[in-house]
């Protein structure tokens, strides 16, 4: 039942509205709304019950194993939430003067410094609100760089065919055309194909490493050389930073600009869709173009860097300083991990992924890149099962839900048919991984013996499989009463 359907005209959560009596003094009639908005009229208890009950219909990291590839669903320390919600932080107005912001700015400054060190870049701006906005900022900086040099014929951004959809979309938002580079059979980029398309029109290339197929791009140094030689710059999509944190740094691989998904690698919660934070780091030559605001240290105190003192900046991406509360959570996490904790993230997420890959292939699943090491994630292809048993990846995914496991990422990257992208993360224990293998084995047996059971899954969730086609055809996007 919708909250609207629990409404009764005149019902109120009285404690929540101001008691103050006012008469909209002086507001001319033409500026007054004629009819109140049709919002729910419910009691405070109804609201609490409704949303408590709704919440229980979700899978989440706090309740379920959630090996959603590319998304890094790992444990979010609960302290991050409580400490980022201290009254002093929550009450601070974004336009408060620097005199009343030193504590907050100190956290941001430290975070900038830690991210620089972790990525090997020479400067960081924290302002992008999520990965995609970080990508936008990064590509915009690439453009600003070429423009500043008068090198303005470059109109093309390259990206592997396996790239996340945000990469091409971000490039287009910066006014670029996008050209796809094929991935080789071994999962690495087809370097020959790359050579073929590099040229004076190349503004840059967007890569993630390990790539979205879950393997480390071994020829990265060579690729960097080729692109730089052609006059292009290298963009690093940091969504997979978890795999290499403290092990190898994008700056050392030759990247010029990187965004980080703090809601992935730095364990800020995903909140059923966000918010995230997508800080960007750059090599020295892109520094002038970083988005504002940034925090600098000035003697004993911290000061804002804005449009005023950074005239070449690509500008401002949100009205204030980005997703401040997410940045605080990431900062807290970074301090909890510290110097030794960061490489451990890479080590144990990699250990877990390789263990799971081995065990799953042992019980009969096919790795998409069997000859490769897994990074922090890996791809299975169910092509064989789909063909032989008529049970496809989506069926497997839905059936997993019945066993209380969130499905891995399905059908991404697009180039691997019937794929499952599996990312266990470092915070899962071996027992949980073994349980997952058992469940996958059971489903595989079901697919052989009782395929209907798998194809009609899920069976034990609040709803059975939903009609997406109808949703898109008979649009019902708001309650009409």
């Amino acid at each position, binding site marked *: 039942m919708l909250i609207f359907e629990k409404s009764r005209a005149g019902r109120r959560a009285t404690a929540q509205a101001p008691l103050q009596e006012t008469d909209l003094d002086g507001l001319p009639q033409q500026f007054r709304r004629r009819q109140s908005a049709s919002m729910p009229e419910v009691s405070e208890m109804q609201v609490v019950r409704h949303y408590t009950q709704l*919440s229980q219909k979700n899978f*989440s990291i706090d309740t379920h194993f959630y090996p959603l590839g590319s998304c890094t669903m790992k444990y979010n320390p609960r302290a991050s939430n409580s400490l980022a919600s201290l009254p002093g932080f929550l009450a601070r107005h974004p336009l408060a003067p620097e005199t009343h912001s030193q504590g907050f700015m100190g956290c941001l400054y430290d975070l900038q410094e830690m991210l620089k*060190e*972790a990525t090997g870049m020479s400067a960081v701006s924290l302002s992008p609100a999520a990965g*995609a906005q970080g990508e936008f900022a990064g590509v915009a900086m690439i453009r600003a760089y070429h423009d500043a040099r008068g090198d303005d014929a470059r109109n093309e951004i390259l990206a592997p065919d396996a790239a996340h959809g945000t990469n091409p979309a971000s490039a287009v938002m910066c006014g670029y055309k996008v050209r796809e580079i094929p991935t080789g059979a071994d999962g690495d980029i087809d370097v020959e194909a790359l050579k073929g398309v590099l040229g004076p029109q190349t503004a840059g290339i967007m890569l993630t490493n390990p790539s979205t197929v879950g393997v480390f791009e071994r020829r990265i140094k060579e690729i960097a050389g080729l692109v730089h030689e052609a006059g292009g710059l290298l963009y690093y999509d940091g969504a997979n930073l978890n795999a290499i944190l403290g092990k190898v740094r994008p700056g050392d691989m030759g990247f010029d600009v990187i965004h980080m998904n703090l809601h992935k690698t730095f364990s800020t919660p995903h909140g059923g869709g966000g*918010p995230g934070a997508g800080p960007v780091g750059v090599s020295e030559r892109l520094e002038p173009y970083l988005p504002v605001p940034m925090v600098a240290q000035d003697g004993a105190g911290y000061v804002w860097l804005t449009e005023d003192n950074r005239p070449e900046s690509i500008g401002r*991406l949100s*009205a*204030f300083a980005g997703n401040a509360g997410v940045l605080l959570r990431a900062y807290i996490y970074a301090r909890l991990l510290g110097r030794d904790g960061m490489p451990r993230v890479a080590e144990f997420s990699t250990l877990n992924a390789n263990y799971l890959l081995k065990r799953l292939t042992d019980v009969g699943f096919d790795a998409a890149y069997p000859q490769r090491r897994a990074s922090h994630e890996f791809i299975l292809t169910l092509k064989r099962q789909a063909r032989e048993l008529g049970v496809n990846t989506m069926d497997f995914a839905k059936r997993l839900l019945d066993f209380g496991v969130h499905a891995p990422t399905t059908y991404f990257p697009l180039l691997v048919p019937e794929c499952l992208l599996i990312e266990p993360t470092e915070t899962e224990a071996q027992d949980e991984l073994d349980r997952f293998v058992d469940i996958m084995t059971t489903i595989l047996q079901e697919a052989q013996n009782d395929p209907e059971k798998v194809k009609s899954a899920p069976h034990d969730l609040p709803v059975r499989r939903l009609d997406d086609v109808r949703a898109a055809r008979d649009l019902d*996007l708001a309650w009409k009463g």
Partner: protein
Amino acid sequence: MPFIPHTEADIQAMLATIGAPDIDALFDEIPQALRCGELEKIPQGMSEMEVGRLMNTRARQDGQPLCFIGAGAYDHHIPAAVWQLATRGEFYTAYTPYQAEASQGTLQLLYEFQSMMTALTVMDVSNTSLYDGASALAEAVLMAVRANRKSKSKRILIPRSLHPAYRRVVHSIVRNQGIALVELPFDMESGQIDLSALEQYAGEDFAALVIPQCNFFGVLESVDELTDWAHANRMLAVAVANPVALAVLPPPGEWGEQGADICCGEGQPLGAPLASGGPYFGFLTCTQKLVRQMPGRIIGRTVDLDGKTGYTLTLQAREQHIRRSKATSNICTNQGLMVTAATIHMSLLGAEGLERVAAACHANTGKLVKALGGLPGVSPVFKGAVFHERVLRLPLETKDALRSLAAHNVLGGFDLSADYPELGNAVLVCATEMRGDEDIEQYRSKLERVINARIQTPCKLKPDW
């Protein structure tokens, strides 16, 4: 090893299964030359207790001054239930609801959010958030350029009386696609968009006119005329609104003859704490016919195999993960948790509650303006009808006044002199429902002291209070 559950025995067993001698061997595809050493500049890890101590110290350092700044972020009461519910693990730690059957909680809530936002704005459809109000306007502008079938223009009319940070953000985001923003001046007397300046553009080709209500000065615009003018000139009308103010002001869907085409704005007043500027969320609603041009996620109601009602992501073919370079936007992760909070917040307040909040803010700002207006040299700058926020002229440099007030722990408003030098010593003030009579009196008395000090030492170059 914080957050790593592996015991030494687990590690050995797992390595044996993999057939690797040690963990380092798992990184053997990474060229040795690239491997980094210790991250020396990163401090040692801390226990939760130690980080707690650090963060408590820093949070306390910034104090909790008495705040009369609005300027796009408003200090409203947030019911305790809102964040106690929104931070429940099941909401807080879920991903985007890709697996609909395992995400009905979030999905139904988002559908309710869409329903509330369309009700509040009286538009047909809503997405489930963009990053913030400013970037939502940038997306609205891009959307208008794509959607306006009657115009091929990449020019947008944007008023100077719109929030300066919004104008900057829109510029940053749209300029690389060759979109130009043409600034509309405001009338120095009323603070409204200068209608005579507007007439100058009649008949020209623009994709859209941006209409803020209220504008950055708290001044109410003649939105009916502006909307009709835009439509008469084949432009789309893009409304920028404060959702709490909308509880009492005419909704964009009813502006002029046909209503605005797109409405966007900052969702922060709906349950997000000030929190240094974020996370907040941008909202965006539009007419039915523009829905396929909309950026961001949209939830649809549908049925399952048994005909039971359920909710799912829909119209995904607009989005980057399907349409890639042809998507309506690159946005992927949005501000879901803030929308969760906003939905709960709106449920608790209801339409009447939001009206009461808006009215209380209006009343308190009125009281503040009256109180400060009694001081020598302080007076409202604009004559137009205002709502919620107001511009005052001060008898000394705004920067100096605000600095002195801040030293007394009062944040006296937003300094307009940098963005609007034409207004002189102007400050934008706001008193939400949270600022009681004593707070207002504190501001008044402290400003009085600041002004008196200034009057007594008129020649001092650097006031020392």
